[in-house]
């Protein structure tokens, strides 16, 4: 993320703001989609609302060097709000099944089962995993976005892995096991 772009947008440069939104858009959309559940149309609404918030509040950004973390905090809040409302709404799983066909043709059963299990995680665990593993935030940045301690981020991720391991095992799959220090550190 170009800090200079954030600085110009912060100062009121509308062209820079448009460019910044174009850069932030993909990560905001993916984050909202994965926290809410990728089959939910409301996830797209949450992402759009988050981008509007970012556009409106860019002038309030205190530290332009942390624009990505700031944007993801907005996106996460929007997504969590929608996710609480949407939790297990009746069509969610059928839409999710459609997505397996639409977006990941030939997805192995294990990946589909993992996604299904992921969508049933408590929201705080889902958000932690998305921010760490998909958005690429550090533990410290994830803690800042979620408003919790770094230790909570670690325990959330551990809890998520334990639940996903149990879910996959129960479904008859063998999760790939690898010590955490070998991945995403």
């Amino acid at each position, binding site marked *: 993320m170009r800090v200079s772009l954030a600085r110009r947008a912060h100062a009121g440069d509308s062209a820079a703001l448009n460019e910044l939104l174009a850069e932030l*858009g*993909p*990560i905001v*959309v*993916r984050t909202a*989609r*994965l926290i809410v559940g*990728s089959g939910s*149309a409301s996830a*797209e*609404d949450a*992402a759009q609302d988050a*981008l509007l918030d970012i556009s409106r509040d860019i002038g309030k950004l205190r530290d332009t060097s942390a624009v990505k973390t700031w944007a993801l905090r907005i996106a996460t*809040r929007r997504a969590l709000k929608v996710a*609480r*409302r949407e*939790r*297990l*709404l*009746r*069509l*969610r*799983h*059928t839409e*999710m099944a459609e*997505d397996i066909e639409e*977006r*990941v043709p030939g*997805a192995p059963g294990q*990946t*589909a089962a*993992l*996604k299904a*299990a*992921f969508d*049933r995680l408590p*929201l*705080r665990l889902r958000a932690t*995993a998305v921010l*760490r*593993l998909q958005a690429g935030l550090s533990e410290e940045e994830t803690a800042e976005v979620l408003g919790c301690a770094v230790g909570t981020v670690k325990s959330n*991720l*551990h809890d*998520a*892995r334990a*639940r996903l*391991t*149990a*879910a*996959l095992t129960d*479904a008859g799959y063998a*999760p*790939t*096991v*690898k*010590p*955490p220090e*070998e*991945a*995403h550190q």
Partner: protein
Amino acid sequence: MTTDANTLISLDEIGSMLHAYAGASEPQTARKRSRRPMRTVVLAAAAAAALAVTGVAIAASLGAFDGISAASHPQTSTDQLDSAMAAMVADANIGLASIPGDPDGQVVASDSRLIGQLVDGARIYVMPTTKDKLCIVRQTTPSSEEYSGVTCIDPFSQKEPTTLESTMGLTFGVARDDVASISFNTPSGQVTVPVKNNVWSYQGSGVDLSSVTINFQDGSSEPFTGQ
């Protein structure tokens, strides 16, 4: 549950799945949902009458209804879902059946209990699943722009003492018997909403969901942590 990090699913596998399912990066046009339109059925019975709890213990479904006194009575005709809601629950069951491992079971609509009404007039029913999960059904009024919906969760003995849902201008939940009220911040200051017959609701915008506090009958409080 497994806790040794060396026996847990790798972060790589989770990350790969997330990247696979993140999909296209641009916001999509919200696809029209095929929710079955609610028939304009108005159940005229006063909700207050429906909320009168007999106090008679029930044997069936006690696990799912644990901690919800408003549901602890034999089912009456007032507790039964109308045909439109029953059809919606049947749809929900199709979705539940598609989840690998069948963790939640099927919603038992015939065991429904009407426990309360929200400030916007929506009715709140609870019902168990065949695996003793707790399902909460919100039946909106015919004039409402909101959708009716089903949410299934672990029974209160295994989770947060209240649920929390927030839609346009309405924040509400179903709470355990020992919860007296729910507090949260709004633009006009802190608001405390009492729990009546296990249901609470607040109509107004700008609720700070990160500020939600659960106030218990014994005078203690704890923050809502968001499961």
